[in-house]
């Protein structure tokens, strides 16, 4: 168990520098900051498995790597299966005395929404069900950004992507996003959460919490995408914050089946405030019916979370 779950930035800055400089992420991409928070949050050494995607591509163009920790990339859809193999080997080698018994290592897999919601869902489900001791971090930029912005099942309703283009007849994606955190929670794992880089304190606490429990854990983190969402590159953190303030991206956690919303905006903003700065929604700014549909979806999910949160563990009743 981590000594305490929160860290201030001074403490964090002494624990990590994050990714090394020189990686090729787009200017303003928020996932390097997310990685910094995660690597800094970990008390023990970590080994990382990374799904194919932007993060893998921009941080490891041979012979340059930006990773300060052992890192393995296998393929697109199998980060969870890969880390489950690493973790299994660790257990076997400990048991056989081939590595010292006091050598504590934590295992973290990173995947984007393509590698997690879609092509890698089976691998993730399998690894969680088997109960491997690892943290899966989903950085959700709501589309296949690495291949040039195509829809994923994380892409929001009405968003324009190159495979859900806003056309004369069809106004972008015709389906709402899938609720992956709920799907993961249905595996009855010890800990699942949603976080945002804008709320760094909450994010770091969640990572420390996840790394302190035995068994599979999952954190879904919103990661705005400059070219994919279409906004000025200085706005990444601001947009992540707007996603939270509009309740588009609720910050919550599911611990042993019990839900807790970690942040309830006192004066929630209408979802349009989150949509407005993004070019992928530009075509619906004059379509109040579509904006209303997104608002309805956001409100409904929020209501559902409030309802789920009512069930409290025995000691808190």
């Amino acid at each position: 168990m981590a000594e305490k779950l929160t860290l201030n930035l001074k403490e964090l800055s002494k624990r990590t520098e994050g990714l090394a400089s020189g990686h090729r992420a787009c200017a303003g991409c928020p996932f390097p900051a997310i990685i910094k928070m995660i690597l800094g949050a970990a008390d023990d050494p970590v080994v990382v498995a990374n799904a194919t995607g932007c993060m893998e591509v921009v941080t490891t163009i041979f012979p340059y790597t930006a990773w300060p920790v052992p890192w393995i990339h296998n393929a697109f859809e199998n980060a969870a299966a890969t880390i489950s193999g690493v973790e299994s080997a660790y257990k076997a080698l400990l048991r056989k005395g081939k590595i010292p018994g006091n050598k504590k290592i934590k295992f973290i897999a990173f995947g984007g929404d393509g590698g997690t919601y879609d092509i890698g869902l089976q691998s993730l489900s399998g690894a969680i069900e088997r109960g491997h001791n690892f943290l899966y971090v989903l950085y959700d930029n709501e589309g296949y950004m690495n291949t040039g912005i195509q829809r994923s099942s994380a892409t929001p309703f009405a968003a324009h992507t190159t495979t859900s283009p806003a056309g004369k007849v069809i106004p972008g994606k015709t389906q709402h996003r899938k609720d992956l955190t709920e799907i993961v929670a249905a595996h009855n794992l010890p800990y699942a959460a949603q976080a945002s880089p804008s709320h760094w304190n909450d994010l770091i606490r969640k990572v420390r919490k996840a790394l302190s429990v035995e068994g599979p854990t999952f954190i879904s983190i919103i990661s705005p995408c400059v070219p994919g969402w279409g906004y000025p590159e200085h706005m990444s953190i601001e947009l992540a914050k707007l996603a939270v303030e509009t309740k588009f991206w609720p910050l919550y956690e599911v611990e042993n089946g019990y839900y807790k919303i970690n942040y309830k905006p006192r004066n929630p903003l209408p979802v349009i405030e989150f949509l407005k700065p993004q070019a992928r929604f530009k075509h619906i700014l004059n379509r109040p019916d579509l904006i209303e549909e997104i608002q309805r979806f956001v409100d409904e999910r929020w209501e559902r979370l409030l309802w789920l949160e009512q069930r409290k563990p025995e000691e808190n009743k």
Partner: protein
Amino acid sequence: MAVKNRKRMALTGNEAYAYAMKQINPDVVAAYPITPATEIVQIFAKYVADGLVNTEFVPVESEHSAMSACVGASATGARVMTGTASQGLALMHEILYIASSLRLPIVMAVVNRALSGPINIHCDHSDTMGSRDAGWIQVYTENANEAYHSVIMGIRIAETVNLPLMVTLDGFIISHEMEVVEVLEDQEVQEFIGERKPLYNILDVDNPITVGPLDLQDYYFEHKRQQVEAMKYAKEVIKSVVEEYNKKFGTDFPAFIEPYRMEDAEYAVLAMSSAAGTMKEAVDLMREKGEKVGLVRLRVFRPFPFEELREVFKNIKAIGVMDRADSLNTMGGPVFNETRSALYDLETRPKMMGFVFGLGGRDFPIEDAIHIIERVKALKEGKKVDMVEYIGVRE
């Protein structure tokens, strides 16, 4: 040449393979059941449950994840094994290439089974032939006894050259038939395989490395060139490991090819796996009739032993090459095509024809084996034959 009385066990091919795995006691086994390889996983799971091995067994949710977990596990320096067949191998296909390019010596049983479609569960070689360019060493075995010993040798070979290796056995024909297997003592197995000395280890948190980076135009070709060199090196290692094994344990396994009654042969057949056993009998029968025919059994398909084939066939006038898979290229199967290519540079080039047989588990009776010999004889005599003939299929 029996050095001492070996323990003899009646085992099916699957049981023999699983028994070898037990004696190897790998660090990690990640596997998914599939007919006709299911028993290997089942038997091994029971070994784990009974505490007969201290392997971490990962019962994954698909073959894709099986190979993916094997890659992750092997990258720690652990000794890793798995097994599959047919569709399972096809589902692993993507990760097979990654395992070999990361130079991870995973050892896998493949119980040969026809690939869909149409769906079928019986033996042919379309599965492993589909993986022939994945950068894995491929060893095709004739019977359960050979499969058992090939697994043990396979660990040493794979871990010496840092390439993954598959040992194949014919589905049902070998996997489910009971035979006498002469087994080694556990201690002998452990001593022979020794400890794995990995190229790298991602659990070394004090010396972090990056495994599987994006490798573009500037370096991808160099890394592929290294794999070619590793395959060349595998030839030396296979030869020396098989020699050492034979010497140590009194066995007489061939390294790459097994010539059978080739001494004064004028024409010959090249066959693999269990069909070679049937063909040996057919050769004996034809020899009794005075035919100067021989057989070469091809045991290792990757790396392809082109030098050994050139040597054994250099004075042969006509050769029939048997394939239990068809490349659907209108010129037969891969063994035929590669062998023909290998012999192209011989001073006196033999006449060659291909035979595709046994697809989807179609029986290969002795009559068909004799028929093949007769067709190769016709080829030798200059009679008209097809470049590729299909054996045992109804017109």
